[in-house]
């Protein structure tokens, strides 16, 4: 089953065969020389050592493909950025990774779940979704609920008793610095506050991964910075793994450890953020850096 065509692939496979390959640690970074992005051909029976891995995802919506055979693996505790222009396929990619959309081909794996999560149904799918929090560009709070009730919803859905929900919601609102706004109707909050509530809601069920789809794109620069700082500190406190889709280099520079540059549904460059800034190889990355400098 394993056909190692390149020496580094053979090394990958040898490592994957041993479950002790990766003892996840807080703030763990990729090895710069041999990032585990390269297509790993792992037997489908093996649960991945990474927090999340996608293998050869393709997707089309009727027309030309939006994603071509994309693979990505993200180790625990890292913040990985996916940067691309609008229409590059980044939102589709994160929606597939976050179980909001199904791929046409390829597979999605979460740590601790033996089956590819994109194939799960019913209760098992809901359990997998509890491992993934999702925040959106437009916040998507429930207008019919207060801040606290928004945060409570995933707990209600997970069947928590009412008394425990109250305690957990208070804890979460404190975590995002909104304890004093608990009873505000969601629509009466400012943009930054809405996104903080959305983050608290996404974290309610102790997810392993936080997916952020342009979470700061609708915010002003100052609020953007404070939300990004919050995400970084949450990673530190909770040992969270974060995947952020963005079109702003500033978000990547400020928040991410590693980054993939996506263009026309393909990753054109992947690696450490510091490396990308020091030595961009793809034209797309160069263009983003130039834009960033001009800002």
């Amino acid at each position, binding site marked *: 089953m394993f056909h190692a065509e390149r020496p580094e692939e053979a090394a990958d496979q040898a490592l994957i065969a041993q479950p002790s390959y990766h003892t996840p640690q807080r703030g763990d970074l990729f090895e710069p020389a041999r990032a585990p992005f390269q297509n790993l051909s792992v037997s489908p029976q093996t649960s991945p050592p990474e927090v999340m891995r996608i293998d050869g995802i393709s997707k089309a919506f009727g027309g030309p493909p939006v994603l071509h055979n994309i693979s990505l693996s993200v180790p625990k505790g890292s913040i990985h950025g996916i940067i691309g222009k609008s229409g590059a396929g980044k939102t589709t990619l994160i929606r597939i990774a976050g179980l909001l959309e199904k791929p046409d081909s390829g597979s999605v794996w979460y740590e601790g779940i033996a089956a590819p999560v994109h194939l799960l149904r019913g209760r098992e799918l809901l359990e997998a979704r509890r491992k993934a929090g999702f925040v*959106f560009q*437009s916040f998507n709070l429930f207008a019919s609920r207060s801040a606290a009730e928004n945060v409570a919803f995933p707990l209600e859905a997970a069947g928590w008793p009412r008394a425990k929900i109250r305690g957990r919601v208070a804890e979460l609102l404190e975590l995002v610095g909104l304890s004093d706004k608990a009873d505000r109707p969601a629509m009466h909050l400012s943009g930054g506050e809405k996104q903080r509530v959305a983050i608290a809601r996404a974290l309610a069920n102790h997810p392993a991964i936080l997916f952020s789809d342009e979470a700061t794109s609708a915010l002003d620069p100052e609020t953007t910075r404070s939300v990004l700082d919050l995400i970084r500190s949450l990673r530190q406190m909770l040992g969270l793994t974060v995947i952020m889709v963005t079109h702003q280099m500033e978000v990547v520079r400020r928040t991410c450890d590693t980054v993939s540059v996506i263009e026309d549904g393909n990753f054109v460059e992947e690696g450490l953020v510091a490396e990308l800034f020091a030595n961009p190889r793809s034209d797309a990355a160069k263009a983003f850096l130039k834009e960033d400098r001009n800002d």
Partner: protein
Amino acid sequence: MTDALKLLIQPLGQTIVMILASTLLATMFGGALGILLFALSNDHFAGGRRGSLIAKHVADRVINMLRSFPYVILMVLVLPLSRLIVGTSLGTTASIVPLSIAAIPFLARIVESSLSEVDSGVIDAAISCAASKRRIVFAILIPEALPSLVSGLTLTMISLLGYSAMAGVIGGGGLGDLAIRYGYQRFRGDVMAVAVVAIVVLVELIQFAGTALANRIRSSR
């Protein structure tokens, strides 16, 4: 004039009973049907599957057909059904059956469109909160769509008031019947006026209550 007002009492009660009972039934069955129509065409629920496409197509045809019947004809057509359900095909109780049947597809469409108007991002958020489909509908979609659902229900009740004026055809009584039998057939202009004013007042009351409730929900957000 006092005579005309006295004549008003019983038909007014009949009209109110007809509207409330048929609104209740329409809310139950039309609401459920509306949720079903929404679910059949929404991708997260049952949309996109072959079976759903067929079911939606069939439901659309049936609903459009029911909605295209002139009410008077519908009322006569469902007489046997009334007999089956309420044991009689005459009177106020019997007229609740055709009224409900007219209101169910009407309300189903209103519920379908109200639910469809909920931002798809909000549905995404509810999905990512790992909620079941049932919970998403009842704990998120319906509360989110509530102001629009209340407006739709108001609209339904006012349509029902119009339909109920034809209940006289099957002896259902009500204000419309009073206006026709006394006001038109017996040349009692005063009764006609009183009946029409009563209908106008009812419409105003329903609309006022509905708008006030919808606004109240909106302003609490």
